[in-house]
């Protein structure tokens, strides 16, 4: 595997037929957009719900998890279409996966701990 390479590949030629290629492209909208939308509305919800009060740590961590999860989903697009190929990309992907995963478990654990586990 190269250290880092950039390629131009047409996503419309990704699958054997144009219809299937479009299907794969369009499916990225709910995948990346869904997580991005969640991060956007969670922070809006928190600002509205808590107003001037400080946002509790469990909610902050849960929101950060959604931001990192969005980055994680975003990196999967150039991986799939192989616009970027190489060890450097895999290392970045690994780090983002770990950070997103830790924040997700930590955030949901703190939420559960506050209202249920104690």
């Amino acid at each position: 595997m190269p250290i880092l390479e950039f390629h131009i590949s047409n996503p419309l030629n990704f699958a054997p037929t144009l219809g299937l290629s479009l299907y794969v492209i369009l499916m990225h909208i709910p995948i990346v957009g869904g997580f991005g939308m969640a991060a956007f509305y969670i922070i809006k919800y928190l600002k509205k719900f808590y107003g001037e009060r400080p946002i509790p740590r469990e909610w902050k961590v849960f929101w950060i998890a959604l931001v990192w999860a969005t980055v994680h989903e975003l990196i999967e697009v150039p991986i799939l279409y192989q616009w970027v190929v190489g060890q450097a990309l895999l290392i970045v992907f690994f780090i983002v996966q770990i950070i997103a995963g830790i924040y997700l478990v930590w955030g949901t654990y703190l939420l559960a701990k506050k209202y249920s586990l104690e």
Partner: protein
Amino acid sequence: MFQKISRTLPYLAVIPANPNSPLIGIKYFDLNTFMGQALGWLKWPTLFGLVFAAVVFVVAAFYIIRYTQGYYGKRKIPKSWKFILIGVAVTAIAETGELFCYYEWPMAGLIEQNLLLVIPHALGGALIGFGAYFLYKEVT
């Protein structure tokens, strides 16, 4: 076609999808490759990262269940948290499907690509996104 791809593989970094994908591609599953590229020393970190990504969504789903049970008690759990919970659980399936497809490429099976990866991923993302939107709408 596949013979042509095989001949050019050593000279190209981009490994194209196979137009004749099998129904299930498990026999092409190879931990030494990622999207058709030899992993080398990145074999174990990559596997750990992919398994970790799938496991954290399962654990997160568990804690969300505990949170909603504790916070709402006997009250009805709102649509927003139901969406987020199902979205997180479905994304765990998608992360597993991702693992299979990355290692089976370019012969990823149609079942892994669609039923384990693309459809659950799109469904999970949409559910989490709309769940957060409904949560926001509850306070506006």
